[in-house]
């Protein structure tokens, strides 16, 4: 008897051992905001995860940033083996439409860390159909970067708190003969984010679910207050930025800031890591976005998150990884290296990295909802993908003086009208 039982035990252990060994699951994880720095950190995190989760391996696919979205989309549509996909705010609706993302509500329900997700994170997760199809990872909210050293040299001793103050100050310090300008203008490539930021601050009744509409359902462009804001925007372009700025993208904005040509820059928090590297923390600071005449500003919140393809064969394991990387500790680690805002309120409160220094500007904005209202873009509209090109075309023509503001606004309104 004893021998038989012993044998059975051995057999059992053997069988369990075999299944444990043969159960190495490989997850395919595609990222889309690829950057050499971030990929390195992701690989470190993956290594940590694999060490604490034997049996699961994660294969990171990192297409170059410029083609990453197309790649991910194509792979999802042709059912390439993928288990974790980085989804952007721009692409989430598309993936859900084509039924490529798994509904994550059941998973989130049983997730302990979900309790500390910030309001914005919860909102972002449920962008489409009020159902969570992703777990957000990073937030991109604009802040005002200021070259304190340059301002000191120029004899300026205050930091603008309103939009008009900002514009006037930028104009005041502009001196083309010394190659000194004021504002790091964004001329191309999603430049509407910047013009919208400034123009909407002139209104006070923007609809938080669609930044392009006021609460009574009208498109904001033709509102006289918005017109005032846009005129000021053009004034800013004409008098406080180099002519070349009409072609400025992210690269040029940052370069101008770092080289001192434009000491004011409105940008996302992931720029912090970049500017630290190129310039050094001691030369600049970040302050909350200036408010408009109504004492308010409308902030858009860009984000990316992780989703699970609906056809994935390893959903459970994929969720394990997502839980791991979205935990407050790991998320904070990623955000510190990469720069954007973390997803848990606990991180903001408890981690000195985020509660003090330049990041406190964003903390301030998050904690003052009476001044700073989070409004989202109409990401779910089928007109959304084409909007950037259309807006840019007319904005550039307007800034160059080729068409009037009235015509510009008319064309924009026409695009969204239906």
């Amino acid at each position, binding site marked *: 008897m004893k021998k038989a039982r012993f044998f059975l035990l051995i057999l059992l252990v053997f069988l369990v051992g075999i299944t444990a060994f043969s159960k190495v699951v490989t997850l395919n994880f595609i990222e889309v905001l690829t950057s050499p720095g971030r990929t390195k950190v992701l690989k470190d995190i993956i290594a940590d995860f694999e060490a604490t989760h034997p049996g699961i391996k994660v294969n990171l696919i990192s*297409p170059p940033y410029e083609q990453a979205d197309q790649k991910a989309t194509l792979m999802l549509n042709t059912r390439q083996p993928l288990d974790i996909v980085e989804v952007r705010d721009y692409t989430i609706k598309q993936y859900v439409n084509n039924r490529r993302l798994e509904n994550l509500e059941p998973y989130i329900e049983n997730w302990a860390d979900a309790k500390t997700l910030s309001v914005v994170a919860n909102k972002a997760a449920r962008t489409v159909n009020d159902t969570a199809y992703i777990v957000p990872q990073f937030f991109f909210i604009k802040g005002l970067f200021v070259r304190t050293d340059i301002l000191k040299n120029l004899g300026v001793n205050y930091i603008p708190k309103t939009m008009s103050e900002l514009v006037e100050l930028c104009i005041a310090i502009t001196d083309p003969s010394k190659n000194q300008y004021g504002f790091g203008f964004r001329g191309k490539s999603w430049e509407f984010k910047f013009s919208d930021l400034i123009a909407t601050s002139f209104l006070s009744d923007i609809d938080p679910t669609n930044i392009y509409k006021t609460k009574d359902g009208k498109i904001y462009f033709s509102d006289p207050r918005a017109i005032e804001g846009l005129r000021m925007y053009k004034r800013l372009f004409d008098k406080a930025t180099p002519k070349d700025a009409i072609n400025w993208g992210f690269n040029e904005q940052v370069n101008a800031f770092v080289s001192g040509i434009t000491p004011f820059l409105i940008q996302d928090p992931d720029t912090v890591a970049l500017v630290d590297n190129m310039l050094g923390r001691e030369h600049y600071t970040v302050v909350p976005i200036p408010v408009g005449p109504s004492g308010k500003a409308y902030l858009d919140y860009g984000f990316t998150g992780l989703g699970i393809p609906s056809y994935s064969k390893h959903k459970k394991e994929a969720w394990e990884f997502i839980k791991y990387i979205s935990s407050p500790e790991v998320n904070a680690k990623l955000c510190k290296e990469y720069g954007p805002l973390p997803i848990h309120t606990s991180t903001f409160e408890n981690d000195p990295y985020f509660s003090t220094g330049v990041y406190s500007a964003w903390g301030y904005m998050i904690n003052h909802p009476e001044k700073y209202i989070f409004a989202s873009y109409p990401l779910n509209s089928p007109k959304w993908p084409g909007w950037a090109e259309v807006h840019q075309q007319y904005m550039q023509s307007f800034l160059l003086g080729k068409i009037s503001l009235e015509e510009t606004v008319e064309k924009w309104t026409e695009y969204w009208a239906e």
Partner: protein
Amino acid sequence: MTTFKKVLKITALALYLIAALLPFYWITITSLKDSKEIYSFPLKYWPSKISFNSYKQLFSFANFGIYFRNSAIVSLIAAFAAMIISMFSGYALSRLKMKRFKNRILLALYFTQMIPGFIIMAPLFTMLSRFQMTDKLSTLTILYITMVIAFSTIMAKSFFDRIPISLEEASMIDGCNIIQSLFKIVFPLTLPGLAAIFSFAFVNIWNELFLATMFIFSDDKMTIPVALNSFISKAGISWDIMSAGLVVSLLPTMIIFAFAQKYIIAGLTEGAVKG
């Protein structure tokens, strides 16, 4: 030639050379500058101290060695294969007697040059993913051969056109069949032409970006253009590694092209035929 004309000629030649080399010079010194110096103002035309930091970063941080190897293997194999295949098809087109058929084939080949690559990408991807042929360097190689085969065939045909058929006819009277006369008599005369085809193909394949981005996922299979493209992120272009990467990726094509253009010119010249 008068001295005035000579001076004019030399000046003109010099201007062409400067215009050609200027961008290359600029990128090279950018790659040798210290990272912070790249964005400094006023512009420096010579680095204050030469630093190979960008190159170090390129090969360590960015794993460039692997991409270089992948590009080299794929380009060499595909270019060589294209050369061989076009050798046969070019010869055939040259010697074919049926005029109408020949012209139709030629038109079909020229037609491929009219096609904007982008509209084939998606259907090609769907087709190949169904057969699990994605993320394989072998697939990429075959696609590259296809990419250059039309122009290579056209080039090959023109080289063979310049070799009088009398040579083959003579050898066939001597008892060789068509394949033998091909290899023994005709091909040696077109060696310069073949070198030309090889190098055109090589350069185009080495530089190809879109097919590589679309069909290769794994990091260890990426080619150089994809790697270079990956130095562009949401944060824009990292000019330090980018310039180093550009210099390294330009060198092989420059070298191959340098050797080849001699042959191209010789190959296209009718003087390649004796007697």
